[in-house]
């Protein structure tokens, strides 16, 4: 469904990603873990097309994305839940969700999708008229996820949805992500620092350190691996 071959990204002189290759099959749930500054967000941005590649190739459903600008990628079924949520803070909750349906041509489908999101996150239903910037952090995260789901994506990119949230909220968010994956069969790429929770959810995982993939395997294997547990799980 989604594959990266030898992807490198540079910010000026700094190499943020070096020769990263990974592949995600249709309906898979793949997690990428790594410490601060490993390049996780850069990886997501490269897939979304908002940072240019200095080398390598990204394919979505077999199509090379090199010639597809960032704003066309959602129309191909890519949805990005960015780091720090990035909701439209001066717009209402409902408008945020409506913006999520931008890639869809069919209005009836858009309305149906928004209903579906409001069923998934009932707290948003009570607040459709509220400005998104006045929501709590957890609610903003639900909105950012809901906004991405509203386009019926084929691939859902989630960049540290746990960031800055209380543990109980994190559990709830992870539970919803698992449910979304189970019920819709959407392909999920989750980037996390919280390794344990993220590894439990996934079918397969990659470990990213200073811009390189240093390990990969099933979540279970990685949790047991010496290297990973020492570096990321504090064990």
């Amino acid at each position: 469904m989604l594959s990266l071959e030898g992807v490198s990204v540079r910010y000026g002189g700094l190499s943020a990603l070096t020769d990263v290759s990974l592949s995600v099959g249709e309906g898979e749930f793949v997690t990428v873990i790594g410490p601060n500054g490993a390049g996780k967000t850069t990886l997501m941005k490269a897939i979304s097309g908002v940072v240019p590649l200095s080398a390598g190739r990204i394919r979505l459903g077999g199509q090379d994305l090199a010639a597809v600008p960032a704003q066309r990628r959602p129309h191909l079924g890519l949805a990005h839940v960015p780091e720090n949520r990035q909701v439209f803070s001066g717009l209402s909750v409902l408008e945020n969700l409506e913006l999520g349906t931008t890639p869809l041509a069919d209005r009836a489908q858009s309305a149906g999708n928004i209903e579906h999101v409001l069923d998934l996150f009932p707290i948003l239903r009570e607040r459709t008229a509220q400005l998104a910037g006045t929501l709590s952090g957890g609610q903003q995260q639900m909105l950012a996820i809901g906004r991405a789901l509203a386009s019926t994506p084929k691939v859902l990119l989630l960049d540290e949805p746990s960031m800055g949230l209380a543990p109980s909220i994190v559990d709830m968010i992870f539970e919803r992500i698992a449910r979304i994956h189970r019920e819709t069969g959407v392909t999920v790429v989750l980037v996390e620092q919280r390794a344990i929770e993220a590894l439990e959810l996934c079918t397969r995982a990659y470990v990213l350190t200073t811009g390189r993939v240093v390990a990969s395997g099933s979540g279970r294997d990685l949790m047991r691996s010496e290297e990973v547990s020492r570096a990321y799980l504090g064990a």
Partner: protein
Amino acid sequence: MTDLLPSLETVLQTLATGLLVGCTYGLMCVALGLIFGIMRLINFAQGDFLMLGMYFGLAVLSGAGLGATIGPLPALIFAGLAAIPVFFVLGWVIHALLLARIAQRRGATEGEAHQTQLIMTLGISLVLSNGALMAFGSTPVSLNVPFASQAFILDPLGAGDVLVFLNEARVLAAVAALAAAGGLYALLHRTDLGRQLRASADNPLAATYMGIDVVWSYRVTFGLGFGLTALAGVMVATYYPFQPYVGLDFVIVMYAGVVLGGLGSVMGSFWGGVIIGLVQQLSTLVLPLQLQGTTVFVVFLLILLIRPQGLFGRSVERA
């Protein structure tokens, strides 16, 4: 003592004129505020856009002789309606050929892009005003429509001793301004396009993740701002003689109104413009002629001191 106080009639007359003039200022401010609010761009060519609108009005009414063939009022309405698409396209082209190109220079940060765009609008302003000087000369011209010297007469007390005259050209201009600002509000808040424009302003990165072409949003915004300013120009030209530098008479008003309304609040800009119009006219009641030009500045500075976020802006609006 009593004859030092302005009469009721004078006060009402001044208020009415202030409101009418203020509505046209409001439209100019809305256009400037739209470009600033969505693109975060300070457009130095705004006064020249207004000037081009005035000459467009002249070209349609006198140049093309429409004023004589279909009558001045239909010709004016036609000129006003035509100005929006014509200058929308011109704004679109200016953005595509000039503003977007320098903003997309490789390696430019967002801040640098804004600075170069700002300087570019200064250049556009110089080209437009000097181009107009070459094309139209420096002699002031006017539209010479009959309703510029006609007035609706109000009798607010019903007794016939207090009469308020509403200049017909100014009434028309105010009506057009209200309609255009209302239309823009509906566009921004009731349509998919408007929602996309506001999203592009609110969070350009997230807008891109939604599949919105943010540069295209800016282009539409610049075109709309140009079109609305040109409409204001057509309407003001009916009662205000003009030459290629006429924009300078209005830019201070526009900036003051936009700041007053709260930078970034598009509809606040309209009320900012209305207030400037009122203040300008009311000051004629109490101040000697030489000082009237300064009132706008004084009010502007006071507002900045007391409420820097503007009267209608929210201090949290720009995160």
